[in-house]
């Protein structure tokens, strides 16, 4: 019973966070805060990438994989190629 109540609590706090931002759509924002929201994807993506690579024991391999993926992404503009190419390089580096 305690487990189920805990799970409900986890759901409530997570759902509340997800709904809160989406519900503020009528907000009329000054230019500074509009610019702020335009930069959110950039800062968030950087935050999702860097600690993942830098905090890993085999970060040099991950870094090389990311460099190859970046080159592929730049050439093809296709997300799937970046992922597949980067993963292939990382996997190959792990075998040596």
């Amino acid at each position: 019973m305690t487990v189920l109540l805990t799970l409900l609590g986890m759901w409530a706090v997570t759902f509340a966070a997800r709904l809160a931002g989406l519900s503020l759509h009528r907000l009329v924002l000054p230019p500074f805060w509009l610019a702020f929201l335009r930069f959110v994807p950039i800062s968030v993506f950087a935050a999702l990438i860097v600690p993942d690579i830098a905090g890993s024991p085999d970060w040099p391999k991950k870094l090389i994989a990311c460099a190859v993926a970046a080159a592929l992404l730049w050439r093809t503009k296709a997300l799937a190629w970046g992922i597949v190419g980067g993963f292939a390089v990382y996997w190959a580096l792990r075998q040596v």
Partner: protein
Amino acid sequence: MTVTPFSRSSFLAGFRAIVPLWLGIAPFAAAYAVTARAGGLNIFETSWMSLSVFAGAAQFAAAGLFGQGASPLSIIATTAVLNVRHVLYGLSLAQKVKVTWPQRLMAAQFLTDEAYGVAINAPGLNYAYLLGAELSLYAVWNVFTLLGSLLGSLVPDPGALGVGIVFPLAFLGLLTPHLSSRIPLVVALVSGLIAWSLSRIVPGGLVVLLTGILGALFGAWLSTRGTKT
């Protein structure tokens, strides 16, 4: 912005946009299930967490905390800290897509880092696309949670498989289209530095939230500097 009718092709486009990420999501869902089972949750509870909470990092943390016999409040508080960043995603999405009340409840339930990333980059984003991306992840996360809790110890460790690399690669792919001029590039580099420093002192979800705020503030300051408001 007006509410557009639900478009099947947009839904499928969103659904497909997440497919390359399945490779990373599936083993992690299975590994979560194994961790949760080892932490003392039964099959129903393990799957229920994936169906309701549906937040990878928080679920892993909770599974570990259940195993340590942590108090319910500390588990809920950890979940809250790890997931506050979704407020930022919601705010960001709300600027680009108009939704009705029931649609907002749906979009909120299934929101994730990955779905946000793919949706915010989609030209002409609408609700159908967002939901397609969200449910693509939801489907594979839940199927593999169930498989993981049934197969138990047969599930390979994602660390050993090396599939975790899929996530930074995907976010790199989502980041690069934004780096077309100098200010975004500087903001990305500074955000990376902030995230790297913060990751040594605070948990992952909080790193994303704080870096998200600080990096975007820096970007807003750089780009509106000198203009009179």
